[in-house]
């Protein structure tokens, strides 16, 4: 099948510098897991007005004032519970209501931005379908972008609409996770916390301080942060382009022989877009949101100017999801459980990251065949590899690391264009999303999604050895299994059904920009992204149409909230249970055997569900590329 002309892939394309950057990334990330995980556990278990590292002293008054204004009852200091708690149903209603408000606010701001302040270039209202899509997108922590930021959104919409949702959708994910952890760690309890307290404390003590630090660091590297209007600069050499000439009514001008006339337009200046970008980009990465301030997202030099800003941002993408694993172990009073889940994530993540790097470093055989004079091999002075859609300052290793991290986490920001990746290099990010965004995943949502897989894994293991499945001493009953199955299957169904609808309708297929199987990949990638709340894209797909805005918007909404509700139901149900004592027959869930069991369940569900679809897209394209 594979033709003999194909040069075999060679390991020599992975450079020492590239490997070193990846090792450094993983080491720094793991070094921050314990301190940040410990810090977050203190925040989630703390009483109102108190937080570690002096944050309680600085912001405790604000937290107490917030509860007073909200009418949340706080008990006198020293009494338990420290505040009025909720069962899972009121908790879920609160979360849904809070997110519904977010949707209305973002939609309203977009539609009314022309009449509101902080719109220096006078952008008009965002079109209705697009505004709907973007509102769902940012509320659901997906941050799919059907629009180009610099030409669509006013500064006010960016900061008060999108920026706020960057914080609040992240806080929502973490709050739901904390509720689930309480369900696992409490015994015979009727409540799982208070959603208002959780949302407030996460935002005040975790997201705001971390974002402030990162935002200032990013500005120091050149990320813009201003309310000034775009800056016009003179070009060193003037340019020109031609376009169809039009008369005063906008109709095409014809010459005497009936042909369309063209006119030449001179371009002597360049407009540098500005805005309050750094503050938004910091939370975009930390909150696994991913929606860019500019169209090119973190490939834009004003959004991600230097290798250092790139390192900080890609670190921020996985920082909180990784650290939450430690928080989980800390809060269930068994740190080994947190390590086990983190280990399972790393076991999937590191090989896939390496694979993307390798595939991208191979370059494009069609370029080699058509233009042999072009050199695609890496050297100390050139990145080599498949450089279409990649920035020179990041090269192959920096782009591949980002692509794997942003799709392992449900971040979805990009520093290179995934649409131009080699077929197998692009398959990896697509499949990382299709695994259900549980390999790190979104802040909070990744770990609660993974814990749903853990429930499935202990159930399967229980069947295999003929024992009642238990996790952390809690018996897993049919109710938990049903809820876990819903949470695992909803994204799969949304991805495949959405793709199927889109490829059957002309409104779906007419938006693709690349021919052949890659066009199918563009559609599959879009629904994998929306159906798993990631937000990255094969960006050649023209998704800013009523069809895609509606369909992808629905996928994002159901994927987010049809998982949150079952997860909270599991939390409530587990909280009421007693803890059964550990015996010789208890299946330990912190051992390497269980880690592999969990990895196998995640991989098998992901592979069985998506291999047929992947075969039609990237795999066929790879065979075409190799066959030339």
């Amino acid at each position, binding site marked *: 099948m594979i033709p003999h002309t194909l040069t075999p892939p060679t390991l020599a394309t992975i450079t020492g*510098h590239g490997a070193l950057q990846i090792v450094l990334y993983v080491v720094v990330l793991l070094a921050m897991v314990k301190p940040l995980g410990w810090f977050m556990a203190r925040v989630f278990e703390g009483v109102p007005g108190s937080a570690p590292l002096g944050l309680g002293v600085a912001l405790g008054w604000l937290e107490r004032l*917030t509860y007073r204004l*909200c009418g949340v009852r706080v008990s006198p200091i020293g009494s338990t519970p420290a505040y009025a708690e909720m069962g899972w149903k009121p908790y879920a209603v*609160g979360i849904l*209501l809070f997110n519904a408000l977010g949707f209305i*606010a973002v939609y309203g701001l977009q539609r009314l931005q022309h009449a509101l302040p902080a719109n220096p270039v006078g952008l008009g209202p965002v079109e209705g379908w697009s505004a709907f899509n973007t509102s769902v997108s940012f509320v659901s922590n997906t941050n799919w972008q059907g629009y180009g930021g610099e030409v669509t959104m006013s500064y006010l919409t960016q*900061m008060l609409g999108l920026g706020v949702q*960057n914080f609040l959708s992240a*806080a929502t994910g973490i709050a739901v996770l904390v509720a689930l952890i309480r369900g696992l760690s409490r015994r015979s309890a009727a409540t799982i916390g208070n959603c*208002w307290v959780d949302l407030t404390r996460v935002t*005040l003590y975790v997201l*705001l301080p971390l974002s402030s630090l990162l935002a200032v660091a990013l*500005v120091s590297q*050149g990320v*813009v*942060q*201003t309310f000034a209007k*775009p800056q016009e600069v*003179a070009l*060193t*050499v*003037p*340019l020109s*382009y031609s376009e169809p000439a039009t008369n005063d009514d906008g109709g095409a001008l014809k010459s005497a022989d009936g042909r369309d006339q063209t006119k030449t337009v001179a371009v002597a200046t*360049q*407009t540098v*877009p*500005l805005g*309050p970008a*750094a503050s938004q980009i910091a939370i975009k990465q930390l909150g696994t949101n991913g929606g860019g301030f500019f*169209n*090119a997202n973190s*490939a*834009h*030099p*004003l959004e991600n*100017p230097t*290798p250092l800003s790139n390192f900080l941002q890609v670190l921020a993408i996985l920082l909180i999801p990784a650290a939450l694993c430690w928080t989980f172990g800390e809060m269930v009073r068994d740190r080994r459980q947190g390590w086990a889940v983190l280990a399972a994530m790393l076991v999937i993540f590191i090989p896939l990251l390496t694979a993307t790097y390798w595939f991208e470093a191979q370059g494009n055989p069609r370029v080699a065949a058509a*233009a042999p004079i*072009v*050199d695609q091999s890496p050297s100390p002075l*050139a990145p080599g*590899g*498949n*450089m*279409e*859609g990649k*920035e*020179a300052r990041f090269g192959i290793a*920096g782009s591949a690391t980002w692509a794997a991290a942003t799709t392992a986490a449900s971040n979805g920001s990009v*520093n290179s*264009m995934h649409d*131009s990746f080699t*077929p197998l290099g692009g398959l990896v990010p697509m499949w990382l999303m299709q695994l259900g965004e549980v390999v790190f995943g979104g802040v909070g949502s990744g770990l609660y999604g993974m814990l749903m897989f853990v429930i499935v894994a202990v159930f399967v293991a229980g069947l295999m050895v003929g024992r009642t499945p238990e996790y952390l001493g809690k018996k897993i009953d049919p109710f938990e299994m049903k809820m876990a199955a819903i949470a695992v299957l909803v994204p799969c169904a949304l991805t495949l059904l959405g793709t199927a609808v889109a490829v059957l309708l002309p409104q779906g297929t007419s938006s693709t920009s*690349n*021919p*052949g*199987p890659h066009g199918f990949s563009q559609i599959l990638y879009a629904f994998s992204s929306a159906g798993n709340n990631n937000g990255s894209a094969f*960006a050649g797909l023209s998704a800013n149409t009523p069809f895609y805005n509606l369909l992808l918007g629905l996928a994002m909404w159901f994927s987010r909230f049809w998982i949150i509700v079952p997860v909270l139901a599991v939390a409530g149900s587990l909280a009421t249970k007693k803890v059964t004592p550990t015996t010789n027959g208890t299946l330990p869930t912190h051992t390497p055997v269980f880690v592999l069991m969990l990895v196998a369940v995640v991989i098998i569900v992901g592979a069985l569900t998506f291999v047929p679809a992947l075969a039609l897209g990237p795999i066929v*394209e790879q065979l075409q590329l190799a066959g030339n």
Partner: protein
Amino acid sequence: MLTHLRPAFVLFAILSLLTGVIYPLAITGIAQIAFPHEANGSIITSADGKPIGSSLIGQEFAAVASGDPNDAARWFWGRPSATGPVPYSALNLDKGTGSSGSNLAPTNPALIDNVKARVDALASADAAVGYARTAGRTIPIDLVTSSASGLDPHISPAAAAYQVPRVAKARGLSEDAVRALVTKHTRGRTAGVLGEPVVHVLELNLDLARQTR
């Protein structure tokens, strides 16, 4: 449900104010005091104070308005750019265009055509100044593939080295003199580890123009 309305509305309002107004304003304040140059787009100004570029945004040099390959040959070319209506158009509100990659798939025939056209353009520029390319000299891939943002200010040192003989001949400079300028505008990996070594095309060209005027 009704008991939830007050906390939902009030908390949403408070957190919106905090994260959507106070936070960005505070960061802007810090940024404008501590890093005014960076916070405002890293604008490069000419000797008489006029803004002539951003040190983070590239400019187009291969497709000069005159269309004369002799003019284009005098400059170092940056990465090809997929922005519209002209390359390196960072923002055009009339056309509704901004930063953008080509998003061409590796199997898209248009990508191969683009690469071949860029190879030909480089050859024409060489021919225009009478530079005969030595046999076996290859073109680094980043010089014929478009960047992700369409605004990439950098090329690889190899892509700059490839253009040195042409630019030197076009400007009547020695190759060593041009090479020294390239070295001056080359930046290595951050701390020897992060990123890739790159040459800053706009700053190199501005320097080149100063030297030969």
